[in-house]
């Protein structure tokens, strides 16, 4: 019964990978900006800073001001990553050591809970509601369900089919909407870091320059 679903997951993952690569190539297709003004700093140092210290609460006001949302987002992402890890292991035929199952289930359930909390926040906060398109709700619901079902499947393996079907839908949907940020997050942050690094703004002068 699960074998065709495993194949469907593999096919959906291939679709997701292919279309995400397409998105990434599309972005790259816009071409690089050749800069003629001499640099004041090091773009590579700016990129390193952007991916590390610049994301921490003491460097980022938005994190300091919204620590619960920030933490919820991290838990949501962590749960989702673990669920994807479990999906890969399941399709590859690896058995999760039984001792890990409860921890994995807790992380994924927490992730799903965090996803739900973010969904409630989106609905309950007027300006977030105003910002949202259907994609924001669908992306959240799919990811949250995927994480929640992954956790439930660990405890009740007979529900695996439902989880795998959700995984297929999620993977097919992945490149369509905002979940594509799994790729463009890295390029956006790198471009931003390189920009401020080139201009000598990153790393922050507070880092002791």
């Amino acid at each position, binding site marked *: 019964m699960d074998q065709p679903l495993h194949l469907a997951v593999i096919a959906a993952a291939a679709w997701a990978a292919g279309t995400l690569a397409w998105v990434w190539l599309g972005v790259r297709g816009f071409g690089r900006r050749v800069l003629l003004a001499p640099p004041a700093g090091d773009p590579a140092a700016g990129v390193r800073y952007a991916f590390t210290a610049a994301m921490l609460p003491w460097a980022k006001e938005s994190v300091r001001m919204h620590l619960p949302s920030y933490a919820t987002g991290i838990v949501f992402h962590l749960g989702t990553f673990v669920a994807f890890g479990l999906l890969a292991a399941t399709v590859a035929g690896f058995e999760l050591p039984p001792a890990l199952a409860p921890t994995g289930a807790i992380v994924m359930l927490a992730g799903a809970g965090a996803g739900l909390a973010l969904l409630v926040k989106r609905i309950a906060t007027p300006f977030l509601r105003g910002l949202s398109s259907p994609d924001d709700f669908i992306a959240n619901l799919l990811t949250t369900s995927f994480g929640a079902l992954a956790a439930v499947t660990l405890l009740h393996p007979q529900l695996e089919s439902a989880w795998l079907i959700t995984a297929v839908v999620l993977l097919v949907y992945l490149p369509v*909407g905002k979940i594509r940020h799994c790729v*463009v997050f890295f390029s956006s942050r790198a471009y931003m870091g390189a920009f401020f690094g080139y*201009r000598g703004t990153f790393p922050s*002068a507070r880092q002791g320059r």
Partner: protein
Amino acid sequence: MASLEERIDALTEAQLRHGLEVFRSKLRAAEAAYLNACVHCGLCADSCHYYRTEPALENVPARKLDHVAAAFKRHFTTAGRLVPRLVGARPFDRAMVRAWLDSVFGRCTLCGRCSLNCTIGIGLPRVFRAARAALAAMGLVPDDLQATVDNSLVHGNNMAITKEDWVDTVQWLEEELQMETGDPGARIPLDKQGARVLFTVNPREPKFFPLSLQASAKVFWAAGEDWTLASDPGWDLTNYGLFNCNDEQAGRITQNLVDAMERLGCTTLVIGECGHGFGSARWEGPEWLQRRYPFELCSVLELMDEYLTSGRIAVDPSRNPKPVTLHDPCNLVRHGGVSEPQRRVLRRSVAHFVEMTPSREQSFCCGGGGGQLAMAAYKDRRIRAGGMKAQQIRATGAEIVVAPCHNCIDQLMELNKEYTLGIQVKTVAEMVAEALVTAGPSPSEGKTTT
């Protein structure tokens, strides 16, 4: 001339297509990534001084980005073409043009504070600049902002000051300088061939703040600098092409500086205290002109820092006893990378220096950037948005706010009145000139004696 509203109503399909083409032509991979990346988390909202002072949806940076991204998705992405409603894609039509105009001209100073606070790291101002360029291509730059650019193109300076008035002002200031220093040899050189430094100023200085030009001149005099001003175009450092985002016009204005350097044979172009002037000349100019400068360029803040560090000038901080705080102009600091020279200079020149919180690259925009000071239609929003800076200033308890930017100074002076801050607003050079301990250069060696 027809109003902006009338011009939008009269837009033809061909003009809309042209606007979209110009928008597309301004995008590179970075902007394309940014336009695909927003997750609508809303965490950028509080980073924007517009939202902080008026918490409305239209003031959220992501909302402003969304108007631009919606058209991008609709016209340049597969998902946006196939399932536009699902992903929030919308066509580039008159309604969209209105939304762009209101967002990128009317509610944004291009300050970039949201970029640093964005969950993803989206460089929102880069995207907004592309949108402004599209509006400029459709003739939809607010008239007063465009008039400022036109002044530079026609008169060589943004306030249409005649050469005669400029030269008269410089000569009058030279006499003042001689009186102030007691040195009849103190000069404010005009068109000195082969001078090391060509110093450029904001036209607001000769027009409204001559003492700040005199202060810079006094510092140069004390340092024994080999410097000059230009009498012909090339003396004005401003470039509102940075704000109307018409790169061709911005390039022509930058060319004035390059021409003056070549005409006078100077080796270092020194940009006076002006955030956007520095950003334009230092960072954008070579891109607009598509060539590297054949000369050095620095900010006068870096030069003053060098004078003090090397001992070329000396200062006595007790001559500036009042508590002083420093405003960080966005185009000089966050986007310009110059944050420390002015601090080192002030720490030496004033007795009591207090930082604003937040400061440096995290500083709040004063609200006057992005060309806002030139756009009367958005004045109320500008003053309200400046409320964040007013709060910051008040919290320092400072009596003097130093702003190394004449645009910021204008805005801060308005905020001073509006929010009854009871402050004085000065340039860095004014503080240094006040604190100078020097007998001026000896005629024989042209160097400072202290």
